């Protein structure tokens, strides 16, 4: 898992529960990194699971909700750090469609060993977009949050229908996104 995810999670947690609570959570979790993360590093994916579980307990919120909020946070941060990707796309659908082919391609240029999830997109007849998240990491809620925030970034309103088609070790989740108001 790329370090930027850990760095941003701790950043969000600082804001949400305060630095002291974050320090306590980190001290409690079995983290090989000791909780010292850098955006350019790569860390074991289970550490993210430990942290999400611990923070949801600390915040008194279910982990699914926390993942989703983290998706919102993350997208905002991406838009700040890498504005070029967003400026290149006119709306949320084209932005979501460009993740697999363009954004991930750029990520691989910087981090050739990055293990990225796979996204498949398809425009449906009714004008909706289906985006399928495929990954062994099971971070569908985080994804959900990212999609919601992406729509918000472009000022669009939409209804998101989620279907879990996971099988075995592999998480497969369909998001069907329908714009609700122009």
């Amino acid at each position, binding site marked *: 898992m790329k370090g930027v995810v850990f760095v941003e999670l701790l950043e969000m947690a600082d804001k949400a529960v305060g630095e*002291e609570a974050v*320090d306590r959570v980190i*001290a409690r979790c079995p983290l090989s990194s000791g909780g010292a993360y*850098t*955006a*350019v590093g790569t860390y074991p994916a289970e550490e993210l699971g430990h942290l999400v579980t611990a923070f949801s307990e600390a915040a008194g919120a279910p982990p699914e909700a926390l993942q989703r909020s983290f998706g919102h946070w993350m997208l905002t941060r991406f838009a700040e750090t890498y504005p070029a990707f967003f400026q290149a796309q006119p709306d949320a659908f084209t932005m979501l469609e460009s993740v697999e082919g363009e954004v991930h391609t750029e990520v691989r*240029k*910087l*981090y050739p060993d990055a293990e990225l999830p796979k996204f498949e997109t398809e425009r449906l007849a009714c004008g909706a977009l289906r985006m399928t998240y495929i990954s062994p990491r099971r971070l569908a809620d985080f994804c959900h949050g990212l999609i919601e925030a992406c729509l918000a970034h472009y000022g669009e309103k939409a209804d998101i229908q989620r279907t879990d088609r996971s099988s075995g070790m592999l998480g497969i989740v369909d998001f069907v996104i329908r714009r609700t108001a122009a």
Partner: protein
Amino acid sequence: MSDDAAGEMVSRARFLRERAARLEAERLLEVKSRELYDAFRRLEADARKLDAAVAARTADLSAALERAEEGTRAKARFVANMSHEIRTPLNGVLGMAQALLADDLTPAQREKLAIIVDSGQSLTAILNDVLDLSKIEAGKLEVVPVPGDLWAQVDRSRQLFLPGASEKGLTISVLRDISLPPRLVFDPVRVRQCVDNLVANAVKFTPSGGVEIRLSAQPLEDGDHLVRIDVADTGIGMSEEAQTRLFEAFTQVDNESTRRFGGTGLGLAISRQLARMMGGDIALESREGEGSTFTLTFRAGAAAAQRPAAPSAPAGEAAGSVRSLRGTRALLVDDNAINRQIIKLFLAPHGIVIVEAVDGRTALDTLAKQAFDIVLLDVHMPGMDGCETIRRIRESGAPWAQVPVIALTADAMLGDRERYLALGMDDYISKPIDRRELLSRIAGLVPDIPPLAVAK
């Protein structure tokens, strides 16, 4: 608050400063990574361009090489054709001149005729050298090793050059080291050619003293032997500078040598190429005024238990020893009337009875009707050629299927001999045909004089 960090507190400002520095370092690292990635891609693109350029250049070179090789093949074909064209008239000139020698002539006429024969034979030798080299260069020469007695073979070279050496008051001796096995597997034709060349040169360039041929062998790890033949003379020797140019084709020590000693300058180049094809080489040690030692090395296989000697007569048997061939019945097959005329002139004085045939089919018909002791078979004939004729003779199942056959041809390039023997010929003579050589070859193949013929 974490206990271990509690001991030494840092200020908020210091913490924020460190944090900002880390974020900046991460940002810089991404920028650098991206630059590195772009540089790498440019390098890859350059490498692809370079690969393409190399591929294009390689293709150009292959095409050029192909053209050059085609040129070499065309040259080899031209030389082979020229060989045939030159040999046929040369055969006529030499044959008729030799036939004339048998007539009643004045001493002055005989001397002039001897010069014609001599010059013709020199021309033949030069032609052979040029053809050999062209065949080697065209990669058409094959080494054909067979079991044999190397010492006996080298001694035949000694016998060949002994008369010429004796005239100059030179001795030729062959010394055989105990390390040389009695029988080895080697190519007798090529080895003979190399040894003859070295001995001929040694005799030619030695005014007094002698030539010593030393034979030895060294067993190799793979069971073969590395044979070493030293040809040492007490001749004029040569400078180091001259030694370096000696093995190049068409090169002699200097132009003065060419005038004094003659030759094409191809002999050593050919011999060295042959030696290398046989897994060896020819080396030279020489001092001006003190003589030279040429060392021929080549690989020879270990021969199995001794087998009976091959039925065919050894090449270059001493011409003086030809026994009487009176009454021998020979079938002469050649489409060229002049060639037939020459051979008749050569053989008739020895009491050999000749029946002529103009092609293979006539020859087969004639063989079916009467018995022969020997067949002289031209290889290149219109209609049924010599190769087809020998095949039909050997496969006929007739009483005459195993009649001895000597191939006659103008294609005297190295390697042809093996080809003809493989076809079922018993021996092979190249045109221009030498009278004494022809008689010697016939004597080697024909059984003793038939009693009926003697009665005549």
